[in-house]
């Protein structure tokens, strides 16, 4: 990759030369960063992008000398401001190099007031008086958009976005020349992500500081950075101007990474995303195959043949759910507290046509998962009804058999690929359990399990393995296979790809679409990611704190959203 190697000029603030990081494991030497070289210029934002395991966080940790033993820097040199870092990383960190981590809840001390933490950092790094430090603290809070009168608040009194602002204030207060931000917005909602990224950009410009932004999100890179370095399995595949790389990627991996990122524009609905098929298991490390984006058969044709009757498949009417968060009765009486009721969902109504995908979009706390649980019958609504194909889901009159018959038709794919499969069960048992529960494929269970595995692109031999032997994407396939086992008509997907890398996300989304075409499935798709919605759904409902603020056809909604909230969501979604 000699074409991509950069030579450090005198103006570069940070130069990383041939950096390799190794982890000696019991059986092998893991090389998590392999011969990576790049520079960060003064005042620029450099993005480091890659999927999980690409070594991007490790590169950041290596620069500030925070690699956990037994990991070690095997070769290479890090030059900061003309001097080799070597053993001085400790003196630079916090002072010349500030850090912002992913989880703002753990990077602030929960027992100390936010203002005190900022003052402490200022006084550690700068020789200033107490009153001067106090003034600087107030200025720092103002700079990141926090109200200085809230300096006496504890971290838990702040929202996620405010906490991340406080962490940025902490990183800034020693006036560093470089800020390393490791996935600073991954735990945040899109609207807050946009604010935090804007803040980072502004700070970088105002102070002339450089930022090294580590992220997995191509959209964030495109919106924020000046230059970008793409890492794949520990190796630097490409580095250059962000615009150039996104528009004219030189390396096939970068090209594929961009192609498999779903976007709001570009009419990706009805098209399969490009996907990166990795040789999982024994294939040579780093090998991958790119499958081009392709036009899928229009879902409309399937819909037309499948719907002889035009009544909608699922009707939710006036759906509400409250959660009682109040103290026990006795405590309440003694402390004169009132009942605390959380209205998670209030009066939500929508319909889903047979064979289509309806997406519910919303930020955290909007009640989308609560609706999903009510739609499958895991949670009873406080008021309102869910009717599936004319049958009320929460009808108490429903007999055991009728209820079981209804359950068979509705299944769910869950968010976490780790918690959704019982870790003590073999995959074969996981897949045959619904067959036994619904009395299906009696005597042919093993054949059916093999069929299901092949349907989701896994091998028949995988039935003998345990869930921990699979990657996140493969586990999500198993989860889909389990949902398919009972031959359902309706599948609820609750954030099925939010824990996955983009390339794997593309595989799973393509699989879901293909299954919809083949089996005429109806989906209720729950997600926070508008770009995913744009590739998956024909209808969208936008949720805000338990209320359905807007719904409509996908294209209409993106083209002219009526509510301010929807427009804000669309605007703040990062795009390429």
């Amino acid at each position, binding site marked *: 990759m000699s074409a991509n190697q950069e030579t450090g000029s005198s103006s570069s603030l940070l130069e990383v030369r041939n950096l390799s990081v190794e982890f000696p494991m019991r059986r092998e030497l893991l090389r998590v960063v392999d011969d990576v070289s790049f520079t960060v210029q003064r005042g620029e934002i450099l993005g480091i992008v890659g999927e999980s395991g690409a070594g991007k966080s490790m590169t950041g940790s290596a620069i500030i000398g925070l690699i956990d033993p037994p990991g070690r820097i095997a070769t290479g040199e890090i030059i900061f401001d003309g001097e080799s870092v070597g053993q001085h990383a400790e003196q630079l960190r916090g002072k010349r190099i500030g850090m912002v981590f992913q989880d703002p809840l753990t990077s602030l001390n929960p027992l100390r007031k936010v203002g005190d933490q900022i003052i402490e950092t200022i006084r550690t790094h700068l020789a200033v008086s107490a009153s001067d430090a106090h003034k600087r603290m107030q200025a720092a809070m103002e700079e990141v958009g926090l109200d200085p009168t809230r300096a006496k608040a504890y971290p838990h009194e702040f929202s996620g976005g405010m906490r991340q602002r406080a962490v940025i204030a902490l990183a800034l207060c020693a006036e560093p020349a470089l800020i390393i931000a490791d996935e600073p917005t991954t735990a945040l909602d899109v609207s807050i992500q946009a604010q935090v990224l804007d803040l980072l950009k502004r700070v970088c410009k105002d102070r002339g500081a450089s930022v090294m932004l580590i992220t997995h999100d191509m959209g964030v890179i495109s919106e924020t950075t000046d230059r970008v370095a793409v890492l794949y399995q520990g190796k630097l595949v490409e580095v250059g101007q962000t615009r150039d790389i996104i528009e004219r990627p030189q390396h096939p991996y970068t090209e594929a990474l961009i192609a498999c990122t779903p976007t709001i524009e570009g009419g990706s609905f009805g098209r399969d995303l490009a996907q990166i098929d990795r040789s999982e298991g024994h294939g040579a490390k780093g090998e991958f195959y790119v499958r081009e984006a392709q036009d899928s058969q229009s879902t409309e044709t399937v819909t037309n043949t499948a719907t002889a009757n035009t009544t909608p498949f699922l009707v939710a009417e006036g759906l509400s759910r409250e959660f009682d968060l109040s103290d026990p009765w006795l405590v309440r009486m003694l402390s004169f507290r009132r009942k605390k009721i959380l209205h998670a969902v209030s009066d939500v109504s929508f319909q889903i046509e047979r064979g289509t995908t309806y997406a519910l979009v919303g930020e955290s706390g909007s009640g989308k998962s609560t609706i999903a649980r009510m739609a499958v019958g*895991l949670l009873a609504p406080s008021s309102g009804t869910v009717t599936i194909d004319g049958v009320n889901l929460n009808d108490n009159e429903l007999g055991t058999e009728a209820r079981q018959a209804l359950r068979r038709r509705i299944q769910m794919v869950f968010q976490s690929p780790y918690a959704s499969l019982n870790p*003590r069960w073999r995959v074969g048992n996981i897949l045959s*359990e619904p067959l036994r529960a619904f009395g299906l494929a009696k005597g042919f269970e093993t054949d059916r399990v093999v069929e299901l595995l092949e349907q989701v692109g896994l091998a028949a031999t995988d039935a003998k393995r345990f869930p921990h032997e699979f990657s996140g994407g493969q586990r999500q396939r198993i989860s889909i296979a389990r949902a398919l086992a009972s031959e359902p008509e309706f599948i609820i997907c609750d954030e099925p790809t939010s824990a996955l890398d983009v390339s794997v996300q593309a595989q799973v989304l393509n699989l879901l679409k293909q299954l919809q075409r083949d089996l005429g499935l109806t989906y209720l798709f729950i997600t926070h990611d508008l770009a995913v919605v744009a590739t998956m759904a024909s209808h969208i409902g936008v949720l805000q704190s338990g209320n359905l603020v807007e719904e409509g056809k996908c294209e209409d909604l993106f083209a002219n959203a009526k509510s301010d909230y929807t427009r804000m969501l669309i605007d703040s979604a990062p795009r390429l």
Partner: protein
Amino acid sequence: MKRFFASDFFYDFCRSPVTVVSFMVMMLLLLSAIFASFIAPTNPFDPASLNLMNGFTPPMTPNEFTGNTFWLGTDDQGRDLFSAILYGLRVSLFVGFSAVLLAMLIGISLGLIAGYIGGWIDAAIMRIADIQVTFPSILIAMLIFGVTRGLLPPDQRDELAIFVLIISIGLSEWVQFARTVRGATLVEKEKEYVAAAKLMGLGRAQIMRRHILPNVLGPVLVIATITLAIAIIAEATLSFLGVGAPPTQPSLGTLINIGQDYLFSGEWWILLFPALTLLTLALSVNLFGDWLRDTLNPRLK
């Protein structure tokens, strides 16, 4: 088996010499207890084989009347101490294992029910547990032991003493298991694989037994090892106090009880060897349990 030897678990085990030694000692004691009737030179429970003339023979010295030599000496009745210890070990381990099994059975079931069903059932079970831990467990065992013995007809008391012992120790040690299992169940029941099972229409009992139980057993195994040591010591304590295993079927505790009568009259061996055996057993089980806890609990790493 091959996979076991290649596992991190086995690797970790080999890297800790203390654990390897304690495990070997534990297994040695366990095997000698199981095969006591083949290893022991005499059967200490067979009155025909006893010779009162052999009484109080010191270790490794010939008896002045009969000329017989005993490795660890004999007690007041002329019983070979080495054989008595092996048989006593058997009683101690049997009581220990059975008591732990009983405690596990009660604790796991109640913990699962309390954690999964919740509500007032949870409150009731856990309050009973709370009340029970405010008493020292040995006191509870003595109480149960006393009451149960009182209810039994006098001619069966000695015969059933061992089982009464198991029940009393088992009932006094279930709380730990119930609390641990309840905590783990509270975590597991919120996981999505449980929701998936609910979607298949599985009943509560099935979900608890088939899905949650296998996932809460890890910490239970650790507590079981540590409770085993506690149960063995509890049994010895009860027997030492004279309320446990009867002298006709002595456990290590009974032997220590007999021995303490003679300690100050010069016959030290009657006390020392059973006591050393008990110490070694409890220590090796405890050390192994500690290692197991550290290895199986990823939060400590």
